[in-house]
């Protein structure tokens, strides 16, 4: 087990900068997720930790050991690849035993450890199968077992669930978490799926355009995004460009052009993100915080609108409200039965609660 310390990492491929000036400290035993859209530099960063790429600038350290240019085979990391990368000419047993064989472990010890880890991933009855005879979920488990059996210092998972169907994905998510807790192993998990990131991680680093936008726990990332990219990428949100007009008395006032009105926001660190005078600002409010009603509403930030569409998803109901020609807001409520659904075309009132709004700067590109 070890910490991973990336300091001032930059990686360029020719003229393209894939990762720029990255600083990260991943703690011992932590489940750490790199989250971002494709091409954001998250896989490049993971591959620098594994040793498949060497950074153009910067230092990679495991604990206090400088690993920047150590070849991958000497890093003792266990990696699970997106396509699993199982050796097609070997059985399940041989695949899992590969790393132990390289480490010149005795036959009996190898057998014991392989059987042990296969039991943990619940594949003990498939020991002698060819990997091609396994289902996607089973192959995934073999890949996981193969990475875990060498007792790596760091477990690296590169979008391991993206090739599985939805139900299997849920199952494997739980499985990976269970194994990670059991082995107490420092884990870096790469994904573009925000649900995976939010449900599994101790901490998340959100990437975009080769830069790390924010590092934090799932609740911090969701509730206190640092900029409009993070707010929009994680979960659903209503985003509006705003300008600050007034500050004081525990609340600040902003003007939103598209709403053609002013918004009051509570002046707490939860509601007001860090920004400077020169930043362009955005207001973000999550759909589940937006109140939509056909009855008059009281309090600040109430605006009239017309229901454009009601979308039923089972557990929740999304109501799309057209505020004017340029703006539609979404409100989400838990399903309370048909009598509570609003009619399309109905005139309604929308309230954006002042303690649920978050003001963030726009992310510079």
């Amino acid at each position: 087990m070890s910490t991973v310390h990336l300091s001032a990492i930059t990686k360029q491929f020719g003229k393209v900068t894939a990762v720029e000036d990255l600083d990260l400290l991943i703690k011992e035993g932590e489940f750490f997720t790199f989250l971002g859209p494709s091409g954001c530099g998250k896989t490049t960063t993971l591959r620098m930790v594994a040793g498949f790429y060497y950074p153009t600038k910067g230092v990679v350290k495991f604990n206090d050991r400088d690993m920047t240019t150590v070849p991958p085979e000497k890093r003792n990391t266990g990696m699970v690849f997106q396509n699993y990368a199982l050796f097609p000419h070997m059985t399940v047993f041989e695949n899992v035993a590969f790393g132990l064989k390289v480490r010149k472990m005795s036959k009996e010890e190898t057998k014991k450890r392989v059987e042990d880890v296969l039991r943990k991933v619940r594949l003990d009855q498939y020991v002698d199968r060819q990997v091609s005879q396994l289902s996607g979920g089973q192959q995934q488990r073999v890949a996981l077992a193969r990475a875990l059996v060498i007792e790596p210092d760091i477990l690296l998972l590169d979008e391991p669930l993206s090739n599985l169907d939805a139900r299997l994905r849920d199952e494997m998510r739980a499985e990976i978490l269970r194994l990670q807790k059991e082995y107490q192993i420092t884990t870096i998990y790469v994904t573009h799926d925000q649900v995976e990131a939010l449900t599994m991680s101790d901490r998340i680093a959100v990437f975009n355009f080769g830069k790390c936008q924010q590092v934090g726990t799932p609740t911090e990332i969701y509730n206190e995004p640092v900029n409009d990219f993070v707010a929009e990428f994680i979960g659903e949100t209503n985003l509006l460009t705003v300008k600050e007009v007034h500050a004081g008395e525990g609340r600040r006032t902003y003007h939103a052009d598209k709403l053609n009105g002013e918004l009051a926001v509570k002046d707490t660190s939860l509601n007001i993100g860090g920004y400077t005078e020169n930043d362009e600002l955005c207001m973000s409010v999550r759909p589940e915080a937006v109140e939509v009603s056909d009855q008059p509403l009281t309090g600040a930030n109430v605006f009239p609108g017309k229901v454009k569409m009601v979308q039923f998803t089972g557990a929740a109901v999304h109501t799309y409200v057209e505020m004017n020609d340029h703006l539609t807001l979404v409100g989400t409520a838990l399903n309370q039965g048909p009598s509570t659904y609003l009619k399309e075309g109905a005139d309604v009132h929308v309230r954006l609660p002042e303690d649920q709004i978050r003001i963030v700067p726009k992310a510079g590109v």
Partner: protein
Amino acid sequence: MLNAEKRKTLLLLIPVILILIGYVLYPTLRTAYESFFQNGVPTLQNYEDFFGSKAKANLQALWNSVWISLLSVLFSALIGVPLAYIFNRYEFPGRRFFSNIAIMPIVLPSLVGVMAFMFLYGEAGLIPNAIKDLLNLSEVPFKIGGISGILIVHAYTMYPYFYMTTASALSNLDPSLEEAASNLGANRFKVFWQVTFPLLTPGLVAASLLVFMVSMASFSAPFLLAGGFRVLSLQIYFSKINGDLEMAATQSVILSIVSITFLLFMRWYQGRKDYRMASKGIGAHRSEVSNPLLKWTMVTLGVIAMIVLLLPHATLLILSLVPEGTWTWQTYPTAFNLENYTMLFDTPYIWEPVRNSLIMAFIACLGVFVFGIFTSYALVKRKFVGKNLLDILVMIPWALPATVVGMNLILAFNSPNPFSFGQILVGTFWILPLAYFIRFLPLVVRSTNAVLEQLDDSIEEAAQNLGAKWFYTFRKVVIPIILPGVLSGTLLAFVQAVGEFPTSVLLYTIGNRPISIEIMNQLRMFNIGQAAAYGMIQVALIAVVMFISSRFLGVKAEKSLG
């Protein structure tokens, strides 16, 4: 300091480059160099002799080669494309069987194939004579020879290139494209010309280039059938036999220029972005032929095609049963037995060529196998400057006509040099295995490239991540995965080396004379039966290899031919 990856790449490249320079580049350049000399004096006289008015024969031979090749492309396409279309698009009784027979010409080694054609349709051929006797004619109604002979043999042996590319393009063609076209209102004719055909063109162009190159290089057919007709590959052989090595070098240079131009053009054409789609897992859809008249026409067509295609094989088999001295003045063979086969085992000088061929092909293939894997690995999995150049260098022996490869080796190794370890190789046993090695290296590199490209980089990375060093990964992971593909390529190279004629005829000695040379000798002595028996050995070898490839290696041998 070089990092570890670059060091490995360099270590891998050094032997590859050394061998390619020593045995491919140097001989080629040596030939070019020799072409500028006459009796040891530097001069352009050879080129003047070639293009000048003094020796029209050379220019005529070049021109003959070109138009024979163009006609070969045309005829091969005219046979291959419709056949592939019918056998892959329509469902009728026996379709699968016929489509398997359609590629049978490729199991006939070129020299043996030409021989079979000669005895089938030539002056004394069985078919013309049978027709003559059946109809009581005074003369044979037709015979092949000269230009017609060459063209018919070319069309027969080369149409499979068109057949195979068309068949594979048709089965990769997403049927929904044609369905979309008819859904939008196009009639069947329009669908074919506006959708299907344009999608087939890249494959057809590639096949045309290939057939053109192969027939420019063709040696066996003109050698046995040309009579007084001259083509360039044959001219090289005659110049060499007459001892005019400088003229042979000049002719080789001209033919090399044509071939290498085609190689570069082909690379450009295939590397160009094309619009074929790679949708996977599409089932080929075939229209069931319901009209009984049409259906039985197709079956008849299939049966006739089958007979025509298999006649040379059958002829070979029958001829191989004719003992020596029993078919001289008679129109048809008079006696049949297994003497020619039994003599293989109890007469040493009959067996010797077979043994020579097997040993030399084995040595060459061992080299090609090892060297091919490393070369292909460097080309597919490593990044380095000049990769494109190396790739071209590897493919040069494939593009060069065998006669030219033979000439290059003669000119490079008839004097001692570092690559022959200070020995004169010409006139020794080793020159032929070396020639086979060079000739068939591209084939193995290509088939290895195909499997290596399929191998995802993450497989190697996974092994490395688990702690395996590069060589361990290479031995335990890469090699076992690619082995079937490499083996099938090597086996194919082996059977081709066993039957190789053009380089053999330039380089053999009495001590190492291979099968093909002995076939030629036996033909000269009118011992047709023994020649055919040698041919049957080659056909049997090829059949065994194709069976092994498809059964145990899971590779269709004909795939690696293209």
